[in-house]
């Protein structure tokens, strides 16, 4: 368990999320059963679901499938800045924002809150996106 934590800490520092977001990921990891995995995060991010509105939706519906590019809100057409911290250094710098959007977007796409495991997997995918 300790080695996982150390790995997460090292990985987070490499991936340039703010320390508070790094701490949050460590906290999520203590609540999750598996080490976070970007491939699982990608699957969560790209899978189409029947969302809150009762229609098909995926995270990519608004964020697009290339996270280094801007996305577009599927409902309103408003442009969404790139999600990848590599392309948009403002990403994953505010814990408040991270928590808010994970809460809202899981509900919109999966019609429920994400688990600690799922949130960590998705965050890992976003951080490692190249």
């Amino acid at each position: 368990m300790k080695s996982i934590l150390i790995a997460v800490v090292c990985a987070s520092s490499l991936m340039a999320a703010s320390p508070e977001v790094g701490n949050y990921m460590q906290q999520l990891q203590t609540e999750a059963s598996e080490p976070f995995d970007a491939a699982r995060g990608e699957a969560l991010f790209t899978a189409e679901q029947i969302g809150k509105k009762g229609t098909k939706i995926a995270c990519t519906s608004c964020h697009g499938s290339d996270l280094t590019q801007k996305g577009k809100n599927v409902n309103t057409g408003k442009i969404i800045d790139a999600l990848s911290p590599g392309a948009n250094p403002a990403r994953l710098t505010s814990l408040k924002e991270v928590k808010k959007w994970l809460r809202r977007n899981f509900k919109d796409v999966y019609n429920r809150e994400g688990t600690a495991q799922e949130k960590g997997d998705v965050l890992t995918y976003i951080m490692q996106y190249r």
Partner: protein
Amino acid sequence: MKKHLFVITCALLAVGSVYLAADDHYEKHNAQRYEKTAAEDAVTSGGQKRSTAPVETTSARLYKNECGACHMAYQPGLLPRASWTRMMVSLGDHFGTDATLEPADAAELAAYLDANAYVSAPSSKHMARIAKSVSADAPMQISQAGYFVKEHRRIPQRAIVQPDVKSLANCNACHTKAENGSYREREIFIPNYGRWDD
């Protein structure tokens, strides 16, 4: 006879252009008044000295950041207080999406909207007419307000449903200064369609 017709035509044209100019002047004046009062309001509610430079309160900034993240931050004066109150208690299902906020932010925004809603806000003429005509069946939908529907009734569907606009709720797709609270006819430019004048 021909001469009379010519004189009458000229007179009508002159009257028409004076009317258009006056209307335009009125719209412009109203937009300026709105901006000015909004700035003054921001200064006084901030409890600071009056100044001529527009000052944005932290609540106004919060409103723009939170609500404006997904759609244009509609001017609070576009809806009456009751509409905003209902909006703020139903953010868990906000037009089919989850728009929930942290409790402290939600409370701050509820107070901001209550203070700046149509009843007390320095609305422009058009915004006031929209707020006054909000439908009882859809009290949260600006685009369902009677005056709003009337003003947009002649726009062809294809100009609205196109990807660059999507719906009438997307004010700033065509009203180029909508984010500043100005909806003057002169400032309308419909993407892939052109200027609009009625």
